[in-house]
């Protein structure tokens, strides 16, 4: 999966599950405010990414990720690293 495909897939599942407009998900946007995440739904997002890309995310990893661009980088690194 290349970066463009990964971005498209990530945005699609996040927009659908968190009921936000896909246009609002931009690389520089803050994840928590865009998806309106609280501490509970942040874990939902972790579970959704794990489920969609078959990767494992640790609590300390996710706390460092602020915007979507960083999230794409993180998932891509996970996918490539775990192949």
């Amino acid at each position, binding site marked *: 999966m290349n970066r463009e495909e990964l971005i498209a897939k990530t945005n699609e599942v996040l927009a659908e599950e968190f009921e936000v407009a896909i246009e609002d998900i931009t690389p520089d946007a803050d994840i928590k405010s865009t998806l309106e995440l609280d501490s509970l739904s942040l874990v*939902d997002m972790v579970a959704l990414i794990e489920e969609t890309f078959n990767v494992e*995310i640790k*609590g*300390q990893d996710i706390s460092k990720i602020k915007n979507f661009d960083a999230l794409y980088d993180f998932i891509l690194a996970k996918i490539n690293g775990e192949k």
Partner: protein
Amino acid sequence: MKYDVVIIGGGLGGLECGYMLAKKGLSVCIVEKNARTGGCLQNFTRNGHIFDTGFHYVGGLAEGQPLNKIFSALGLLDLPWKQLDTDCFDEVIFNGERYRFANGYDNFTETLLHDCEKNGHTINAKAQSGLKEYANLLKEIGETTFDRLNKKSLEHLAAESYFSKPIYQYLKETIYNELLIGILGGTSLKMELEEKTLPLYTFSQINSSFVQSAWRLRGGGEQIATTLAAKIEGMGGKVLTRLEVTRIVEKDGKAEAVEIGAGEYIEGKAFISNLHPALTLSLINRENSSIKNIFRRRICNLENTFGMFTVNLALKAGRVPYLNRNIFINKNTDTVWNKNGERENFENRSLMVSFQVPENEAVHTDNIDILMPMYWNEVSKWEGTKLFRRGEEYEDFKAKTAEICIRRVEEYLPDLKGTIEGTFTSTPLTYRDYTGTINGSAYGIRKDYSRAMLTVLSPTTPLQNLFLTGQNLNLHGILGVSMTALMTSAIVEGSF
């Protein structure tokens, strides 16, 4: 009437929350589907002998210790507690070699090292100092038990380093000695010793409390439930039994009422579910729900720990001396920890032997319980059957398994068989049907250090006035459930 708090499930967590919130002046209603409250604390009677379901002993009940503080606040210290021997509350046996678990952190390490030497094992200085370091960890965790309750946010809880560290790796890197690591896991039936998942916190918090002090309850664990229920009713609360919640009614992102049969409802301002979180979610309609599908999926996909096979032996009077300690029978130190998902057969699996405290300080016991871990797939072929109607093959399986357990215990309690008046057995299916645990799991959702964020659950839910409590959230066992009840109650109280 609309209650301040409606609690679904009258197990320990539900009753403790009910007590704490009633004490704060809130109107409380507990709804329990069984004829009696208590969940895993229920007693049952066979041939005139009273047996425990899931309760055998507790740790940390002496003055100044964590459970003492909670049980003191709950008014449970007046029950007939019996402290186990301080120089040996658990005796761990490996192929005939005996090791004593003693109370007090220093005494604990000194006794184990003494017994290693007695059994002909030399423990080098590095391993000895590693064992002391482990005891210091237990001490620190024991002394900071309540600090963790202040971390109400799930993010903080999951980031808690004790949750996200593997205990097996810690022991390997600290103690460097397979024999000692095996012995430390030798009282394994208090939890599921999965090398690949068990967090440092689960192992250390539980072991720490027992190293502080260990206690049985004369007359059975259900007294905890009946005492709490009576106190709740004394404060004006309601404890309703034989009433099953069939639905949690959701409206505008909040729980509004619980349905207890066709057309009957109990309304509340806040709701606490003491059920397994997956069962709680199954009570909420999917249509028009503000609970996201991903929340349901992530909760329902979590794995649960093993269950228990229990042999309850009613003994002839005056035949078997009461032992004021538990006995754990293990095959080898290297079979204690589950590695690579391999399951030992019944001949090699660890057993726990618990003695019922006799009345009136008599020297003989009337009952012995033998417990052995049992996995769901070992009984799942009968999952469609109901209590007392599972068929001949199942009865035969139970009888043969009990025979193995009794024979193995007889190696250490000779002539046990000749003293048995009645043998009663239960499997994870029995636990499932009496206590409502998923797949008859003994300890609920399996905690995984590498997925702490997903396997440690918050008392809050996507419905703003629906909260969770019970063994599945943070930590199992009496102490774990009580700590979680404190946390849930504080959050619920704060929501008013």
